[in-house]
Every structure is written in structure tokens, then in C-alpha cells.
């Protein structure tokens, strides 16, 4: 079943009306390993797109290409065409540091800095000089915490350490930290995999609210989560995009056999 001749199958890709991010024939090599093979995918603006697929299929690797986090790994080589708003993000003149201010990221494990809750959120704005005085910074921090649905819970203890929060609160703090620099895109790498169901539900609710203002790309292992939060879904398998399209259609009526097998739980 898994040995379907992948080479003979053209990826099933639909065009997206207003793509924010376009990838064309993106390849990633980790040393000898060919991790991403000719991935082409369009990610719509102001919406949620999810990447699903079995472990090791390359979905997180591809996600990390979008804000060039793979640059920090010396043996990693990215080729192909990857554009945000039509601009090639791998062109030589582009500073990845500035790119990452526009493309925020939330990680699998909550990783608040060992600083106060306030300083965690204020970190990004300070780096980029987004607030010129204390009052503006206070407003910005409050705004970000409110957007992340955390302000009411922590408003009396902003000076406490960010690491003193519960896992779910830490992850929302990390989301607040990511949106504090007002990025255009937020990448989420399995943001709920370390959280309990209640905390997960809160994050999913939050993602649903955020999509009005941000382009969100989420990698998830939970197909239910992909179905609940995303409008579009791409299915990755062995470094390739097998099928990509409107979420409902992928889950109700997958066109590719591998997708159907994965969704019905026959492998992965």
C-alpha cells in the first residue's frame, strides 16, 4: 500500500485566489538526506492552512523554510522558489532577520524566555523599536496579551516569570510574543502537542480569531485539529505534497489514495 508509485502521480494542487505565500518546486537537503522534494503549494492570505502527514514527512521542515529558520542548521540547503507577496525570500539581498519579524513562529514546546511575562511580550517590540516610550509599550503588551486571550489571567502578575505559567498559558504567552511584533504570517509547529485538551481548545479558539488579521500556517498531527481550525489543508508524505485543497474536501472526499488511507487511519 505504501509503495504506490509516487513518481507517477502528479500532486493534486488547486490554485488559490489570493496567495500570500507561494512555493514552487522547493527542495530541502539535510546533508545527504533529501527531506523535501519538489513541493509546490499556495498559501492564502488571511486564513488558516494546515499541513498534515505522518511523522518525518517533512511538514515541519517545510514550515521552517518559510521564515528561514533552517538557516540556523549548517548542513541544511534549500533550493527552489519561495515567495511572500511575490518577493523571493531566498534572494541574496534579503536579510532573514527582517523576514522573521514579518513571519512569526510558535513552536511545538512552549518556550517562554526566563524573564517576566511582561518582558517576554515586550522582547520583540524592543528589538525592533516598535514602542517609543513606556506607555506605548504597556499598550502594546496589553494588546498582544489580549489578542492571545491571556491578559485577564495574568494582568495582576505581569512581573512574574513567564515560566511560572501553566503549559497552556505558556503557549498562549508565546503566541502573544509572536503577534507583538505584528507579523503578517504566523507559523505554528504543532502548537498543541504538549498541551491537555482544554488548553488545546483554547488555542484552537484563538487561532480561529487570529485568522481575521494574520495568515496562519499550522503543522499538526491531529487530523481533527486540522479539520476544526483550517480552511485549506496540504497532505505531506515522504517529503512530497500528495494532495492540497479546501479542508472539507480533503477530509470528505480525498482524491488520492494515500490521503484517504492516512485520513481513515490506515497508516501513519
Amino acid at each position, binding site marked *: 500500500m505504501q509503495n504506490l508509485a509516487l513518481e507517477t502521480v502528479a500532486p493534486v494542487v488547486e490554485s488559490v485566489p489570493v496567495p500570500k505565500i507561494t512555493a514552487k518546486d522547493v527542495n530541502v537537503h539535510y546533508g545527504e538526506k533529501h527531506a523535501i522534494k519538489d513541493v509546490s503549494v499556495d498559501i492564502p492570505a488571511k486564513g488558516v492552512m494546515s499541513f498534515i502527514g505522518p511523522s518525518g514527512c517533512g511538514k515541519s521542515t517545510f514550515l521552517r523554510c518559510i521564515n528561514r529558520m533552517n538557516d540556523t542548521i549548517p548542513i541544511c540547503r534549500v533550493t527552489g522558489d519561495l515567495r511572500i507577496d511575490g518577493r523571493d525570500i531566498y534572494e541574496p539581498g534579503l536579510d532573514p532577520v527582517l523576514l*522573521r*519579524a514579518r513571519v512569526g513562529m510558535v513552536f511545538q514546546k512552549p518556550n517562554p524566555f526566563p524573564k517576566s511575562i511582561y518582558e517576554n511580550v515586550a522582547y520583540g517590540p524592543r528589538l525592533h523599536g516598535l514602542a517609543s516610550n513606556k506607555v506605548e509599550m504597556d499598550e502594546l503588551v496589553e494588546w498582544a496579551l489580549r489578542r492571545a486571550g491571556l491578559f485577564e489571567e495574568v494582568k495582576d502578575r505581569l512581573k512574574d516569570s513567564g515560566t511560572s505559567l501553566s503549559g497552556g498559558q505558556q503557549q498562549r504567552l508565546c503566541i502573544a510574543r509572536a503577534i507583538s*511584533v505584528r507579523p503578517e504570517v504566523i507559523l505554528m509547529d504543532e502548537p498543541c502537542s504538549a498541551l491537555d485538551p482544554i488548553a488545546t481548545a483554547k488555542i484552537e479558539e484563538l487561532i480561529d480569531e487570529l485568522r481575521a488579521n494574520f495568515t496562519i500556517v499550522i503543522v499538526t498531527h491531529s487530523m481533527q485539529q486540522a479539520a476544526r481550525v483550517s480552511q485549506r489543508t496540504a497532505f505531506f508524505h515522504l517529503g512530497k505534497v500528495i494532495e492540497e485543497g479546501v479542508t472539507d474536501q480533503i477530509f470528505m472526499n480525498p482524491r488520492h489514495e494515500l490521503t484517504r488511507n492516512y485520513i481513515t487511519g490506515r497508516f501513519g
Partner: protein
Amino acid sequence: MSVLYFSLLLVMAVLAFALARGRASSGARAAAFHSRPNYHGLLAASLVAIPMLVVFVIGAILTKMIAESQALTALDPALLTDPLRRGAALREIVEVANGRFRGNPSITLQAAGDTWAYVQRVARFSIYGLGLAAGIGGLMFALRSITPDLKARNRFEWLVTVLLMICAGIAVLTTIGIVFSVVFETVRFFQKVPPMDFLTGTQWSPQTAIRADQGGSSGAFGVVPLLTGTLLISGIAMLVAGPIGLFAAIYMAEYATPRFRSTAKPVLEILAGIPTVVLGFFAALTVAPLIRGAGEYFGLSVASESALAAGLVMGMMIIPFVSSLSDDVITAVPQSLRDGSLALGGTKSETIRRVILPAALPGIVSAFMLAISRAVGETMIVVMAAGLAANLTFNPLDAVTTFTVQIKTILVGDQEFDTAKTLAAFALGFVLFFFTLTLNVIALAIIRKYREQYD
């Protein structure tokens, strides 16, 4: 005698192990045993070894006590009131008993020596007899108690816990013993020199007059020049080692390629392995003349032995302590924090300054404190490069001296252990100990305060 006894102990223990192990693993019932055969063997071996060891230790102590008191009764009781003469008499008795006494012993001394030798002989046989009995008793008991229900594993592990506890206890007791030995001598010193004179005096010249009519050796015991000398040299050393060590660590941990790091780190650690006496003559013969030459070029008067030379070389010595430990704690900061900062659009240096160094701060502080303790306690470099003159100065171009150098100077050679001069060494040692203890307490407090936020 003890070699033979311990060989016997070992043979008995191995025998017990083999017998008990065999008994616990034989027959169809083997599967019903609570513990594995090896644990039965180990427990039996312990039951043999421990009683034999106890017999030996108690026997040795008793032998010494009885032999001494019996032998000394043959001698003049007036001798025994003075501990020094009592000790000398005992040494003579032992020499006579072993046939190593030079010259002809007196009749009483010969009698005492014979008594001593007799007690020793009797004691040796008793110890062998009792030890063997205890070992065999332990073996019988161990073999009899082997049943499927015997929790040999739990018992043996309890014994191991006790052994570990004893080792930990020895380490703690040694520390306490050292502290007390220093404290007692310090108290004796303060009976001769008032503590306030010692702690606030600005003159250090520990030569005391032997005869009343001698001049020029008044014996001033003011510790302040030594304190300033120590602080000056350690301060210079930390000015060198602090920045260089920390920056080297940041480069190694964050920027260097793995290849460079894998060669540079061991080389840097070799620097920590250079004996300080070698660094000392490097300071005295290479660095000090260089500084003197450079100083003269600029028209400064530099002592041929200067605090600067000692401080610079000492700084070199402690660079590896700062860099290696800091490198470890920086590397230990989770990658997820680096990713978090980079993903917000932080550059590498912003990430290092604002996230990694604050997160690694407790470890870096403890690295610094360890380095300072090393600097304060260092002797050889200062002896060779900074001189012995106790000048009260903060000029790094002058010769100064430190606690450790003075302790060494006072205690080198033949000494009478009841003069103020010799006792002063213990008082200095006590102050030094207190100094490093305070540093360690501060370091621990800082680590505890910041670690709470991190974990």
C-alpha cells in the same frame, strides 16, 4: 600482619559469596527466591566482611591502648605527666621492642619494651582468633538464613546505602575537622595578639624579638596590607580572566565551527593543567621584566616584583576556569530559547545578549566565583612574581603580598608552634577561609535567586 588478615578476610568473603550464591540458585526452588542469587552472595559476603573488619578495628585500638598503658607502668610515673616526654618514652619503647634502639637500653626501658612486645603478640593472636570466629559465625548465619523469602536484595542495598552515607560523612567530618583545627590555633593567636589589632592594623611584620634587647622586630600583626594585596592581585586577575574568559566562552559556544571548537577547547583546558609554579617563573622571569621595561619606557617606577605581573599571570591561569565552565552553561541553554528569539527577528548577537546570557547567568556567576576563589587561594605565582613586602598600596606597580604567601613564609622551615608569629599563620588561614566561604555563599545565593526563574 594486617596484609595477612585482609587476605584472609577477602578469601572468606569470596567463599561466602560463592557458597550463598550456589545455595540460592540450586534446585528446582531457585525460581521461588525473592532475590537473585548474586544478591544472596553479596549479602553473605558482607555478613562475613563487616564483622571481621569491626574485630580488626576495635582490636587495633584496644591493642594500642593496652600496650601503652602496660608498658608505661614499668617506667617512672613522673615522666607521664608531661605529654611531650610521654610521647618520647613511647617511641623509645617501640624501638626497643622492635630491636631498633640504638645503644643500650636501661633495665626499666628494656622491661617496658618486653611488656609492649608481649601485649602485641597476645593481641595479634586474639585478633586472628576473634576475627576468624566472627567471619565463620557470619558465614554460618548467612547460609542458615538463606530462604526463598529472605529479602537479600533489599538488605544488601541497605548496606550499600550505609556505606555511601559513611563516605559522605567522612567528607563532611574532614571539613569540620580542618575548620576546628584552624579555629583552635586562631584562638591561641588571639590570646597573644588582640583581634582588633590583627584585623585593623596596617603594619605587617611578623618578626618578634627573641631577646628583650633586640631592636627592629616589634612584631606587628596588622592584616590590612595583606588584604589589600590579595584584593589587588585577585582584582587584576579577574579583570584579565573575566572578560577574556567570558568572551572566549561566547565565541566557543555560539560562533565557532564544531571543528575549531573541538580543537580549541582541549587546548584551552591544557592551560588549566599547567602547574602554577611554572606559571610563577613565567611571571617572574618573563612578564615582570617586560612590565618593568615598559614602565621605564613611560617613565614610571616599577618594582621588579609587581602586583601587576602576578595579577596578569594569575589571570591567565584562571581563564580556563571561567571559559570552560561558562561555555558549558551557555551550551546548556535550550535551543528552543535561541529559536524563540531568532523567530522574533532577533539577530544572533541580540539573542546572545538578551536571552542566552541572562539564562546562563547563574552558571556564569558560579564560574566567576570559582575563579576568584582560585585566585585568592593561589600562592606560587604571587611568591615568585609579587614579592614578600607587605606594602599597604593600591598601586599595581608596587610589590605586594597576600595571605597565602605570608602563611607559606611563616611556616617554612623549623618553627616553634607557640609563638605569635607561627600562630599568625593559622589566623591568616582562618581569615582566608572566611573570605572564600563568603564568596561561595554569595555565589550560591545568586544562583538560587535566578535559577528559580529559569526552571
